[in-house]
Each structure stands twice: as C-alpha cells, then as structure tokens.
C-alpha cells in the first residue's frame, strides 16, 4: 500500500492520500489542509489548558513534577489529585465537549441554520427534563443517563411533529424548538419543586452543567458514546454536506434526504444525551463550537472532526476559567459557556432577523 500526497488535480486546495497503484482503484480519501491545521491547533489549546488545569490551584501538581507523578513516583496526594479528580474531570470535559459539538454540527447541518443547534431547539432541556424525571420524579425506574436519552428523544419527537414537515423547514423548527425547550424547563422546575431540598440541590447543580467530581465511570460512558457514534457521524458527513444544498439538489445527485436526516438526528440525539448525562446540559457548546470550527476551517460543509476538536478545547478551557474565575469558589462550567455562548447567540439572532427582514 502506497501513500501518495498529491496537491495537484484533486480539486482545489485538497491533498489526496491515495493507496493502491492505480489512480482509479483502491482507497482514496480527500484531505484538506486547513481543517487539519485547525484540529491540531484546537488539540494543542486543549492540551495546554489541561496542563494548566493540572498544575494550578492548592493541590496543583507543578509541571516539572508531572512526569514523575505519571510514572508513579509522586506523592500519594499527587497521585490522588491527578487520577481521581483532575484527569477524569478533564477527560469528561473534552469528551462531552466533542460530543456536544458534533451533535451541534449535525443539527445545524440538518436544519441549514446555525440556530438549529440542540441547545436552542430544546434538546438539552429535554435531556435535562428526562434526567430530572429519572432522578427525582420516578427514581429507580431507569438510570439517569437513560432518562436523559429518553428526554432528548421526546423533545426531538415533539420538535419533529410540532414543526410539521419533519426537519425540512428550518425557520419553523427553531420557533417550535424554543417552545419545546421552555416546556421541558418548566417540567424540570416542577420536578425541583417536588423534590427534597438535598435532591433539589444536587439536581440544580447538575442542571447548570458542571464537571465537578467526575468519575472514571463518566469517562467510560462518554468515551464509549464517542467511539460508537463519531464514526457514524463521519459516515454521514458527505451526504449531509449535499443535503445542505436543498432537498431537490441533493436528491438529484443521489442522496436519500429523509433517510440522511433521520440518521443524523438519531446520532446527534444520542451524542447530546451522552454528554448531558455526564456533565448536565452545558449551554451553548453545541451552538458555538461547530460554528467556530466552520469559520476557522473556512469549510463549505459540516466538519465533524474539526467540530469535535474545537468542542473539546472550548469545554476544557471554559472549565479552567470556571474553576479560577472567582477566587476560592468554583463556578459550574455551564455558567461560563452560557456567558460566552449567550453573547454569540444574540449576535446570531440579530443577524438572522436582519436577514429575514431584508
């Protein structure tokens, strides 16, 4: 198997990695340089933020000592800090950020609208309601993550039917989604009101979206979700790209538009549910990360890998900020992302209204 890197003749600004002796046979994947660079940069940012997270604070491990701790030669406390608190927290943050971002990229592509992201159209709220139902209202019926999946699915179904023609009318979908989100949050409030004070405290903390006190079980869940769902998202990237050109144009080149949409929504709902069940409905990562990735890569379609890397970086950096913004007090990471994402959401809404008014 040979690898050919050949910038010529492979469409504009592409580098081709080909295998096989003949140009028209074997495996040929199209790579673009810019998204690759963006991914590397995002991962470096995430890694730097992770190293800072590990090293700062009262129990921080100074960077020069980190190799020794990793090698098992640190103090007991250092070992505990790294492996029981900070590393799981970092991994859950990175994994959930990636899952939310990919889910957002897929939803934004399906709805052909940057506002059509799961946190805006009520998916995160639906997952929260499902989790609240499973944790507070009917405890013990299903595990909380399963409740989150169910809640997200119910919210998606409500948006699907509420907007009439499935997901093919993006403007209506955003309005219906906001309504569904409001209803889901009302249900969460109801659940909180009925719960005992201790339970309500726990769930309220969780509803803000928090990465505090994550465990390796959470890491396993989000990693498993990514391992299964990310490849499926990658398989859907090319058809989704085409579906963005309109149903007729997509059908004309041989894409089954309804089937592509259904599959994408399914994968995206599961990704959101997985992320929400490990860190709560962290706001606006799904909205912003794919858009940041798309702008940086100057890509003409949804880029799942770039979105995933950007989402991981965004959530790890946001969590670092959340831990140290107010001295002596840890904010839930959702507060930070909501602050950042809220500004961006207003920007998007203004642009959208200007566009529809024009």
């Amino acid at each position: 198997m040979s690898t050919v890197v050949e910038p010529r003749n492979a469409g504009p600004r592409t580098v081709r990695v080909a295998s096989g002796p003949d140009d028209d046979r074997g495996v040929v994947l199209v790579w673009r340089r810019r998204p690759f660079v963006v991914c590397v940069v995002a991962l470096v940012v995430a890694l730097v933020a992770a190293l800072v997270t590990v090293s700062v604070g009262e129990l921080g491990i100074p960077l020069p000592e980190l190799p020794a701790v990793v090698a098992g030669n640190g103090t007991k406390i250092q070992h505990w800090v790294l492996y029981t608190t900070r590393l799981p927290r970092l991994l859950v943050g990175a994994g959930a950020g990636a899952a939310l971002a990919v889910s957002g990229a897929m939803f934004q592509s399906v709805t052909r609208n940057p506002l059509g992201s799961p946190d805006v159209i009520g998916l995160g709220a639906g997952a929260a309601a499902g989790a609240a139902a499973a944790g507070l209202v009917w405890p013990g019926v299903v595990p909380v993550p399963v409740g989150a999946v169910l809640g997200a699915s119910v919210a998606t179904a409500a948006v699907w039917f509420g907007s009439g023609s499935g997901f093919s009318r993006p403007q209506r979908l955003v309005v219906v989604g906001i309504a569904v989100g409001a209803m889901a949050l009302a249900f969460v409030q109801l659940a909180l009101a009925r719960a005992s004070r201790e339970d309500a405290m726990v769930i309220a903390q969780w509803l803000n979206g928090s990465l505090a006190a994550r465990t390796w079980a959470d890491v396993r869940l989000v990693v498993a979700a990514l391992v299964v769902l990310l490849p499926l998202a990658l398989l859907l990237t090319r058809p989704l790209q085409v579906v963005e050109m309109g149903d007729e144009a997509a059908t004309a080149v041989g894409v089954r538009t309804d089937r592509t949409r259904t599959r994408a929504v399914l994968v995206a709902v599961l990704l959101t549910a997985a992320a929400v069940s490990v860190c709560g409905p962290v706001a606006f990562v799904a909205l912003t990360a794919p858009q940041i990735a798309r702008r940086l890569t100057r890509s003409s379609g949804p880029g799942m890998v770039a979105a995933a890397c950007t989402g991981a970086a965004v959530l790890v950096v946001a969590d670092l900020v959340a831990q140290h913004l107010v001295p002596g007090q840890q904010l839930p990471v959702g507060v930070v992302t909501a602050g950042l994402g809220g500004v961006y959401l207003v920007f998007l809404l203004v642009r959208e209204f200007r566009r529809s008014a024009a």
Partner: protein
Amino acid sequence: MSVVDSPLVADGVTLAYDRLVVARDLHLAVAPGSFTVIIGPNGCGKSTLLRALARTLAPREGRVLLDGEPIHKMRSKDVAKRLALLPQGPIAPESITVGDLVARGRYPHQGILRQWSAADARAVDEALRATEVDDLRDRFVSDLSGGQRQRVWLAMALAQETDLLLLDEPTTFLDIAHQVEVMDLCARLHAEGRTLVAVLHDLNQAARYATHLVAMRDGRIVAQGRPEDVVTEPLVQEVFGLASRVVPDPETGTPMVVPLRRSVQDDVVR
C-alpha cells in the same frame, strides 16, 4: 415514437402535494436525443411533472420509468449516474468555491472509501470548460452574478456525466442576455448528444430551442409535438388564454408568439 425506446417515461402518474392533486393520469414519453420543453401557465403542473420525472417527487399513482425501470425503486445513486437535474433555487453552501460545488456533482460516482478519482477530476474539468466557468474555479459562488451562478449549477449537473439532463426553469430570474447564454449552452449540450427535458416560462424561447414541445394546462397535457405544430394561435388561446399572432421568428424561422394589441382605443378613451 414508441414508449419502449424512451429513456424517461411518465406512465399514468397522478401528482400531488399532500392532499392537493396537481395532475391526474399523465402519460409522457421523452424521445431519445430530444430537447423536450414543457410549457404552460403558472400552476399548470409543469414543474411538478418535471419533479416526478427527476424522482424528487413520488407520484401518488402510476410510475416513472428510467430506461424501462421504475425510477423510485432504483438505487438513488444509480439514478443519479443516468439522470441529472438543475432544480429551482438550489442553496449554495456558505463559502464554497466554484470548483468544490461542481465537484459535488460527482457524489453518485464516489463512495466512503473512494472519495476522489482521476475520472472525477476529468469530469469536473470538462464540466467547468463546457459551461465556460473554468476561470472562476477558485472564486466563491456567493460572489458570482446570477448568470454565472446558473452556469456553475449547470456545471455541477454536467459533472454527473449523465445522458439525461432535466432543467427546472433554468432562465427564470436571469436578465435577457444571460437567458440566451444559458439556452445556447443547453442547445450545445443537446447537440453533443444529451437528451434534455426543461420547463420554461417563455413560449418563444421554448419554441426556439425545443425539438419537442409539451403544452400543459390544469394538470393535463393539451398538446405535444414539434414546435411548429404545437405553437399555433388556437393553442396559445387554449393554453394561455391569450389572443395572439404566431409569426416566424425572423432569426430562426421557429414560431414566435406576438400578443394582439388589446383595443388600444378603449384605453385611450378611458
């Protein structure tokens, strides 16, 4: 012409959007190698019929046959290798270049592990050349004029390398020079051996470029045949409700519809 030879046949199709039935029991066999143009007033079902032929709309009853096979039962990619469509109002993704957009026409020829080939590169080059947009290759589609953009979408359809090309009102929203440019391009693609089926608004344009005309009204096919046989004063009256004179086009000799002056004196008196 027999139905057997036709590459694309509507066989008793009833067409509807939700509960609104647009056309009932239509029969149409596209002649191989023809430039077939469907005409008719707004809302007569001409674009709906084209959508059914392009399998973007499933008929309520009846079937569409592509080379004798029911098109809605074929694999979508297999259809796309034989039949291309220029739809109305396709959406150009944000910040896509002309070359990248045209390359998307290669989708039916590609797979998950076969995302690009020399054949793809050749087809894209050829499509860009045929539509004379190869010098725009690295430009963003959003920066182009309407006429250029339409040629780029046409290039994307050409990149599919199909014998059949369907066009849904390709000249609407273009100024007259760009309309002629697009129609001349279509005529050239037809002359090169493709079978074209188009929906057109402009009767004179249709008569000038078509080899076969199909006139529709109220969801029915009223007449079909050579332009000189179809475009007559009674038919224009019947289909469009327009009193007109039909004279030979001074440039091509094809029938040209000139609407009658509507009693100008009445207007002056009023």
